């Protein structure tokens, strides 16, 4: 990369770049500086924190499972077929990426709320999505699943259907080709997509609080709990502890996935 004429960096670029690094680093340093390290262990194992953590993991994992079940088939169809309207669908899928999460939450409310046709129907079966744990998972899936679809589609596009053709000449029918050739070859991108989707779901705030509210033990996930204690009860110490926990999880995801899974994105 940096050879020949570009080896010596331009000073005029170095300064804004340094500002950029500080821009990311300073808030993190600030957060770490305000951690009450002596009370941290007891806060981390307090019921409130553990409840929020358990709920966060639960909702985000459900969100990933939902995304996998509907996102992988969609990515496959987008990448490998010439179904009409693919471009429109692709645009639709990427919309949640740029849509303010609050708008997503309101939109979910208007589509799946108790008084809507679907909400009424679900009500018959005793299922209520708004302000429930399931609703929080749905909101997280809504925001997270575009990451999965985009990553898996890119992964599938990287290869043409050569190996599927090979499998066909060897006698494999379409479903066998899908399960034994297409999916395993797309595994790295599926894993990377699932990781991104999970990370996004874990940090999800806007759509979740709008669609599912913030009820401790039911819908109050880690980010919502952090916000509640920061804004509502003025417990900035607890807010910092929860933030630290989220930060630790993020760093962990980054470290674990960097080479093994996110490599598929490069």
């Amino acid at each position, binding site marked *: 990369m940096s050879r020949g004429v570009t080896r010596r960096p331009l000073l005029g670029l170095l300064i804004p770049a340094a500002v950029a690094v500080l821009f990311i680093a300073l808030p993190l340093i600030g957060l770490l500086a305000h951690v009450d390290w002596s009370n941290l262990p007891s806060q981390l194992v307090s019921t409130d924190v553990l409840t929020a953590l358990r709920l966060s993991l639960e909702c985000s994992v459900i969100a990933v499972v939902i995304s996998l079940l509907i996102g992988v088939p969609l990515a496959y169809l987008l990448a490998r077929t010439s179904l009409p309207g693919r471009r429109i669908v692709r645009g639709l899928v990427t919309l949640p990426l740029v849509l303010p999460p609050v708008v997503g939450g309101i939109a979910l409310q208007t589509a799946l709320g108790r008084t809507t046709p679907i909400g009424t129907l679900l009500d018959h079966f005793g299922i209520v999505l708004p302000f429930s744990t399931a609703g929080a998972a749905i909101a997280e899936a809504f925001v997270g699943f575009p990451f999965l679809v985009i990553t898996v589609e890119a992964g599938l596009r990287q290869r043409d259907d050569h190996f599927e053709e090979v499998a*066909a000449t060897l006698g494999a029918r379409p479903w066998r080709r899908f399960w034994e050739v297409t999916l395993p070859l797309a595994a790295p991108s599926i894993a990377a997509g699932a990781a991104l989707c999970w990370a996004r779901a874990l940090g999800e705030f806007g759509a979740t609080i709008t669609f599912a509210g913030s009820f401790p033990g039911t819908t109050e996930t880690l980010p919502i709990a952090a916000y509640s204690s920061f804004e509502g009860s003025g417990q900035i110490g607890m807010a910092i502890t929860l933030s630290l926990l989220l930060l630790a999880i993020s760093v962990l995801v980054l470290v674990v996935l960097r080479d093994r899974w996110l490599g598929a994105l490069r």
Partner: protein
Amino acid sequence: MTLQARVRTQLGTLRLECDLLVPSGVTVAVLGPNGAGKTTLLRVIAGLQPVDDGRVEVDGVVFEDTATGTWVTPESRRVGFVFQDHGLFPHLSVLDNVAFGLRARGVDNKSAYARATEWLERVDLARYASSRPSALSGGQSQRAALARVLVTDPRALLLDEPLAAVDASGRLELRRALREHLSTFSGVRLIVTHDPLEAASLAERVVVLEDGRVTQQGPFSEVSARPRSAWIARMAGLNLLRGAVSSGAMLLEDGSWLTVATSVEGPALATIQPRAIALYRQAPGGSPRNVLRRAVAGVDPEGDRWRIRLEGAVPLVAEVTPAAAAELRLADGGEIFAVVKATEIDVYPV
């Protein structure tokens, strides 16, 4: 078992119009330059590429017939296709690769793996059974791909450029192994290649495909001795001339005459070995010889015979010794007289 194909199809800029008959027990090589439609032809037979108009039949089973709308999916054709890149699944072990076709056709795992293991031993790859294909050399992966196809006992065996992905050092050995496996396979055997050496060593018959059309077919020795196209002539290292013969004189396309020793009359082709052409700076005397005025266009040294490209309306290639080339100052270019005896010109009807 016989393969019969009539193919008429447009693919991008290529128009493929080709009739093919491959009886079993005879290895046929489709030989032609790159982009002639050779691979497309194999893909049509395997069912990976539908045709606009045509019919494909193997062993009495109609795979495709545009007249009746017949179409058999590739997975139901039982046609063994060894791809140019061998197409081994990178996520499966070599053994899993070889067992894939049997399992896909419903053979239970136990016997599928038993037969796959047996085939790996036959192609001398048993020790690589649990390796990934990426650990194999070009020749090994070719053998694994061959085993993967043969284990399923296909109706036809299609090989696309079988030695292209193999380095030169492994070719000799692999060619021998390939010929052995081909001879024990009783179904239809069809090879596609751009390499005349491969066609000559692996196949009993060649079908020359150029620009989507068959230009010539027959045993390799016949095809290369009496080429019908410039490409085959170049491949065989011969000068090819086109013209018309009338009582011992051949009128060439550029209007010049050659004295020939033949009983052929009418439109004809003629070949001249490059080494049968003698070069002189001065027009030589003496009657029974043909003297063609040309310009030296280039000199390609090749060992003890240098190839001299001669420019003219009908270009020629001559071969002389390096000493003669130096003496005649051929590297300087300039006008030259090419002399050929009538008896050195092989004339045959178009």
